[in-house]
């Protein structure tokens, strides 16, 4: 009997892993992808929906249609994984036995963990933009918003794409200036971190950009509850920030089935894996990729893409009775939209924080790192077709290696300046 690989989740990680493994292993191995719906959202596009820069229907496609021929797609809710039996138990009572399991079920938005978040004022003066529905509601609210205080608040880490709330703030500044109402709007960026970002050099640079754009930062603000009726955000240590329009990023956790599966996840429902091999600490034939994995790097499409090569090689090794090899280095690469047709690019890994320089080629670039430029913005816009046609099919993107490289990066930041 042939072997079977079960993949839970048909998003970025699950899709690229399935397609890559299919190419790597041919039809000797059965590959089954399970997901509870057939809507694959291009998540970076969600940032643009509230500003009318992207239409919701432009960023959603069929999950099944992104999978290569020969990969089976099962539309079903996962109840739990039974590690002892090597079996995925579905909510409809069916089961999928596996030789290797790949958990690629992403991160879930835990609105209910923050008191009052979806209470009075939800989708009126209290908003989010991490789902299509939320981003559309926010678009409608922003179109009407002309005066008062806009507060942007990621509630706590970890979140998908940790730069997204900063990008939202930069784009809101631009959007409101274009509409001629920026003078009447105060923008506040309330963050649980002690600075604009987690990594020192980038934090200083991004903090400077907030100041330039007259966005006030409120650091070390740990949101305890949201009061939409009174229009205020209250921290656990009883500080308050009033708002007229609140844009939150809800708490994140793993997919609900993870906490129902004994031994599979950590306390937040993410999968504890070896950070270099991506093999689960719970069982040698279980792996995780992307947002579902508990890794000390950003939860982002780029890190997921870079993990793909290591993951698929190790899945094959384990099926052949060999030891997995640790080659994923935490590499992540993010465009940061800053408004006015410009963007920054950051590139880092487990060991190295984002530095200024050039990417991907050391001198030729063409993309400048940690500095605003038009070419980075064009890079961000050009990425969506690459996502559907190169990244999901499981191809490498020419010139962009999975391994982090220090070439072209400078360890002493310069003053920079827009190009």
């Amino acid at each position: 009997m042939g072997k079977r690989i079960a993949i839970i989740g048909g998003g970025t990680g699950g899709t690229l892993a399935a397609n890559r493994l299919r190419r790597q292993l041919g039809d000797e191995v059965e590959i089954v992808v399970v997901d509870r719906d057939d809507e694959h959202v291009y998540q970076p596009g969600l940032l643009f929906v509230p500003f009318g820069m992207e239409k919701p229907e432009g960023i959603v496609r069929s999950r099944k249609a992104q999978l290569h021929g020969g990969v089976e797609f099962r539309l079903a809710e996962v109840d739990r994984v039974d590690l002892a039996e090597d079996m995925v138990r579905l909510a409809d009572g069916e089961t999928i036995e596996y030789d290797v399991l790949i958990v690629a079920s992403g991160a879930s938005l835990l609105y209910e963990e923050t008191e009052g978040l979806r209470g009075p004022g939800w989708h009126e003066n209290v908003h989010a933009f991490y789902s299509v529905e939320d981003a559309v509601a926010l678009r409608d609210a922003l179109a009407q918003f002309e005066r008062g205080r806009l507060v942007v608040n990621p509630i706590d880490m970890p979140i998908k794409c940790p730069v997204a709330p900063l990008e939202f703030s930069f784009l809101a500044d631009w959007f409101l200036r274009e509409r001629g109402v920026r003078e009447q709007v105060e923008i506040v960026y309330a963050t649980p971190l002690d600075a604009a970002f987690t990594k020192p050099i980038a934090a200083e640079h991004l903090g400077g950009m907030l100041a330039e754009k007259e966005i006030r930062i409120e650091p070390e603000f740990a949101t305890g509850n949201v009061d939409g009726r009174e229009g205020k955000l209250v921290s656990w240590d009883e500080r308050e920030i009033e708002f007229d329009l609140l844009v939150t990023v809800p708490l994140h956790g793993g997919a609900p089935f993870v906490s129902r599966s004994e031994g599979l996840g950590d306390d937040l429902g993410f999968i504890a894996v070896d950070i270099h091999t991506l093999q689960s600490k719970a069982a040698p034939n279980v792996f995780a990729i992307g947002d579902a994995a508990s890794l000390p790097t950003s939860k982002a499409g780029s890190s997921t893409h870079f993990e793909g090569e290591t993951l698929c090689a190790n899945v094959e090794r384990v099926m052949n009775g060999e030891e997995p090899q640790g080659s994923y280095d935490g590499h992540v690469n993010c465009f940061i939209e800053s408004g006015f047709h410009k963007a920054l690019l950051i590139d880092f890994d487990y060991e190295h924080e984002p530095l200024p320089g050039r990417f991907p080629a050391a001198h030729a670039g063409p993309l400048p790192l940690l500095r605003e430029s038009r070419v980075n913005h064009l890079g961000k816009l050009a990425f969506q077709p690459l996502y559907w046609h190169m990244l999901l099919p499981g191809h490498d993107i020419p010139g962009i290696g999975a391994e982090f490289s220090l070439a072209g990066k400078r360890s002493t930041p310069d003053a920079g300046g827009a190009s």
Partner: protein
Amino acid sequence: MSTLSYAGTTVDVDAEGFLTDPQQWNEEIAAEIAAENGIDQLTDRHWLVINFMRDTYLESGSAPSIRTLGKASGVPIKELYQLFPKGPAKLAAKIAGIPKPRGCI
């Protein structure tokens, strides 16, 4: 790697003063680290959290997040912020003599 001296014992710490070897820790060391961070008296409620942090770390290899502390330590999040001001998970880990919690990327 550097070292610090607490309660007459030399311990290995990281750049931010978190103990790198939980076995070097004892309750006197905890009291001195707490005092250094503005907590003059460790109450039973503090110890409940500190012991929960240590037990979780020694069992699982990673420190619990603030959300897990709030759900499983027996001390609600609001009180955690009163006991260990600003960053309860971070400060309690430091006092409990375990490495700095990961996450926050």
